[in-house]
């Protein structure tokens, strides 16, 4: 059997939503960063799926780009995500040194 596009997109939405839930509900910054990765990967999955279903080896039905364009997008997103994770973990380290804790509830300096 072949996976339909709808099923793929449901999976994407599920992964993305789990990520959103994790970002919003978790207190531990490490878990939040992990949830953020989930959100990014949900989107990646969606891009790959669209690429698989809409772009033939001969070119896009929509705009004529090659089959590899969606994969390239995903790789760029992965690279950016890696950079983001590096920055986020660095901030996490600084936060931990400051408060001896990785709980996001401690960081309320922007309170109005």
């Amino acid at each position: 059997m072949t996976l339909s596009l709808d099923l793929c997109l449901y999976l994407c939405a599920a992964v993305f939503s789990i990520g959103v839930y994790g970002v919003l509900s978790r207190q531990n910054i490490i878990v939040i960063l992990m949830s953020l990765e989930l959100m990014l990967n949900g989107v990646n999955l969606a891009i790959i799926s669209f690429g698989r279903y809409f772009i033939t080896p001969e070119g896009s039905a929509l705009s004529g780009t090659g089959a590899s364009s969606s994969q390239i997008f995903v790789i760029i997103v992965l690279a950016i995500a890696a950079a983001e994770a590096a920055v986020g973990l660095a901030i996490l380290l600084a936060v931990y040194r400051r408060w001896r804790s990785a709980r996001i509830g401690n960081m309320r300096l922007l309170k109005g």
Partner: protein
Amino acid sequence: MDNWIFLIPLLPFLGFLVNGLLGRRLGDRAVAIIGCASVAGAFAISVSSFLQVDAAKPDTFLKQDFGTWIQAGDLSVSFGLVIDSLSGVMCLVVTGVGLLIHVYSTGYMKGDSGYARFFAYLNLFMASMLILVTADNIVLMFLGWEGVGLCSYLLIGFWYKGLANCSAGIKAFVVNRIGDLGFLLGIFAIWAACGSFEFSAIVEKVAEIDSPAAFWICLLLFVGACGKSAQIPLYVWLPDAMAGPTPVSALIHAATMVTSGVYLLARLGPLFDAAPGVLTIVATIGALTALLAALIAFSQNDIKKVLAYSTVSQLGYMFLAAGMGAYSVAIFHVVTHAFFKALLFLGAGAVIHSLHHEQDMRRMGGLRRRLPWTFALYLIGGLALSGFPLTAGFFSKDEILHVAHSGFGNIGPRGVLWAIGLLTALLTAFYTFRQIALVFFGSYRGASEPQASEESAAHGLELDKVKESPLSMRIPLIVLASLSLAGGFLAIPHFLQPGIEIPEDGKLSGLIIGGIVSITGIAAALAIYLRFPRALKGFLSSAPGKLAHRLSSRKFYVDEIYQKLIIRPIGVMAEICFYVVDRLIIDILLVHGSGFGASALGHLLRRLQDGRTPTYAAWFLAGAILVLAVTLWAAGG
């Protein structure tokens, strides 16, 4: 440039600049010299210009045009000065009397901390007055008109530390403003009717103005004249204006500024001739003012207030003459009045000076032995004011009465006006010599009488400490006294209006009647106040006497009526505006309201900023969902 008339207003103006800007550094002596010299220069140029006018035919004039002053669309006002016979006479009076008063002021104001300021204001006044007089168009005249009003305000409130002085200055300014509004509207109306502001052009186009337009123009201009020249109903500021230094009262509020209303009428004489209805109003108001002010002058105790009401009364005479169309006769009285009233004011100033600023006549008396010079000179002024035969006032006043009596012009209630004028002449002689009796005769009351009024600052002064005033104050008085004696022999009416035809019959009998009336008034006053004071006391304690005295001394309650009818309602309106518009709408709603609204909104919005990152992320999510929903909905999904 074949003449120098531009220097006539310019010299005093330069004096104002120098004295006003540098006066404190120059020292009093230099200030006095600059102040007097600038006016003396203006006087000299006035004389030489006047002689040029005089030498040629009567309708020649000197003119100087300095180009366009105001240009807007087809409206154009030039800055031009003109000296003809009328403005020449006025220039001579203004600069001549002004010079004498400047000289007098050097003595009177000696030691005052505002010496330079005083002379700066006086010079500014001279400049404004001379522009008023020499202007060749009515807009430029209005510039001078406002200038003299400003100087009047500044000089009434010259001793600005006294609240009464300041409020008197404000009163003068506000009342004048009412008149000025009329004058300004009159100028607009003239522009609408003639399309020109120049006096010569207006006079030429009189025939083209239809009579309702002429009526309203003249009425509006007369309102302006009423304000400046203190006629009913706008005379109330002039008596209060006596709060200023006495030379100011003499120069501005007796000799020159207050006569500018008469000058305005004389300048636009042909225009007023085209509006006989207004002339009747002018003559009636003049006569009524003359009578009312004379009645009030009866019971005043302040030496300057008597003279102030007398000035109002004499101005009434001038308007009576102007209302008859005899403008030259009015100007004749302006000139003689300038002489003898300046003399009286300066004499009163000398008395006040000698008594260390005592103005209450109840604390004077018997001063003729201590102040023989002042007494003699004051007596001459009093005789001239009373119209004693052969003095200046005798001729000019009888000329007016004669004009009223003899059928010059076509004014309606001629007989009544003449009778009022004659009655006023009698009253004038009486109150003048009441004053002289109270001040110079009898026994001295200054040391014994307890403080008569709260206003008089002076304390009891022994009679033997009363001294004559310095020479600088006496010489101007002597000059003015000789002018008051001889000024009546000037044939000003025939000089100004060469074609004037005043009927000759009845002239001699008029003079005789006038003389008799004047002598009767003088004799009655002297007899009552010196020989029969008991009879006076008896009369004043009787019921009608009490009523009459009360009406007169309370000035017929005119100030109180104005207070109730005009000032109170305006005050209430101002309060309403203040509390409703200013306090409620502007302060509370707009100013505080906008601030309070912004801050209340801020209080609400700050709750969103709780500092917790997940909250921000949740809002971010909600926003993203919202945008998504809107996009989908807009796409038709």
